[in-house]
């Protein structure tokens, strides 16, 4: 598989993690693409933390509504059965455990499930936005990201060295190389992307990967 096919595999693989009726928050970037890759028959409810439930596809050109944007500030739509609320309610939903899963990107993840995704000191400090609440509050935290940096630097580490978004909250890491579950015993490589070997995935991963029992 080429790079594009691998990224496509990643997105489809994340989309298999849901059952119908799940309330899901998708982060910006790779996670956003998951909405279009759901298996036949699976319907999930997407939350947008800026204030509504039932995120639909981007509007057609000419139908943009300036009051209906997603958490990335892009024009969006609200599906039938969706509803709007204020930020206090939105984060009550998030922090209160009413979101079944959040899918977000990461700068680093480590074998304890620690996540760094919001700043690189002295270089990039955009702020955490809603990420810290999402990662603490969602019942399941799925990191969807490229396995390594563009320069080949490791992102799945023994210990994150960037400032954390949250401690010990990540449940699953899905990359273009495979699917890794964070367990109390360490990282378990549940699934390897087509065409790759265990050794190839391990070579791009700092902590020891375990095979499922």
């Amino acid at each position, binding site marked *: 598989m080429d790079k594009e096919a691998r990224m496509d595999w990643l997105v489809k693989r994340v989309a298999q993690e849901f059952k119908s009726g799940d309330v899901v928050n998708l982060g910006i970037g790779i996670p956003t693409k998951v909405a279009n890759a759901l298996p036949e028959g699976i319907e999930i409810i997407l939350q947008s933390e800026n204030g*509504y439930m039932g995120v639909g596809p981007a509007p057609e050109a000419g139908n943009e509504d300036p009051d209906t944007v997603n958490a990335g500030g892009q024009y969006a739509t609200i599906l039938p059965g969706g509803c*709007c609320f*204020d930020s206090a309610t939105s984060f009550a939903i998030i922090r209160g455990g009413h979101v079944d899963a959040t899918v977000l990107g990461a700068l680093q993840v480590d074998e304890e499930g620690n996540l760094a995704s919001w700043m690189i000191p002295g270089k990039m400090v955009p702020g*955490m936005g809603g990420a810290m609440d999402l990662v603490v509050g969602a019942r399941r935290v799925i990191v969807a990201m490229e396995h390594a940096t563009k320069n080949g630097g490791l992102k799945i580490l023994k210990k994150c060295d960037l400032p954390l978004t949250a401690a010990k909250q990540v449940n699953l890491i899905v990359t273009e190389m495979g699917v890794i579950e964070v367990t109390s015993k360490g990282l378990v490589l549940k699934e390897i992307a087509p065409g790759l070997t265990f050794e190839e995935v391990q070579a791009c991963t700092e902590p020891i990967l375990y095979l499922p029992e």
Partner: protein
Amino acid sequence: MTKVIGVEDAIRKIENGMTIMVGGFIGCGAPGQLLEEVYGKEVKDLTLIANDTGILGDALSQLIVHRCVSKLIATHIGTNKETGRQMSAGELEVNLVPQGTLVEQIRAAGAGLGGILTPTGIGTIVEEGKQKLVINGTEYLLELPIRANVALLNAYKADKAGNLVYRRAARNFNPVMAMAADLVIAQVDHIVEVGDIDPDEVMTPGIFVDYLVQKQPRGVTNLG
């Protein structure tokens, strides 16, 4: 008695050095016309409380560009590079707060609570300098109320008694901020007579709102 006044009269109430809250989320539901008047008047040394500082070019971003703000409390500044530049240069004091924490802090101020306990930020730099409490075996941060002298809001509809109705995702921080400032000013698309809004439709009770400013229709614009 109507609460409708002109934008200039409204913004004249903001003095140098005040703390202001501004509703909106990356421009959506932000009170663009009120903000234009703020930076137009060159109000200085403001403490700004907002989700973000807008997208470089929009009305909120111009408060930063025009150096009206000396201290910022926000959740995300990535969409306005000037904010990051001023922060790095030591020209702007920035306090970044998780979004769910910020909205609860503002709500606590409006609701007369002394603080709230949140699990968000535990194990991160957000916990620095804050009191931690353990409730039933789980650690929480004590987060304190945040209020302001003035709140600048945006609403879709209002009656002359100040009852506000928001539309779609433009609601966001506006209703919570309406409760947590000494003076509350809202720019509104449609101002109607008292009695024209059903009591169940109101999202912000009129008692919270001091002044309404009629939003002027414009050509296509990206100014919030």
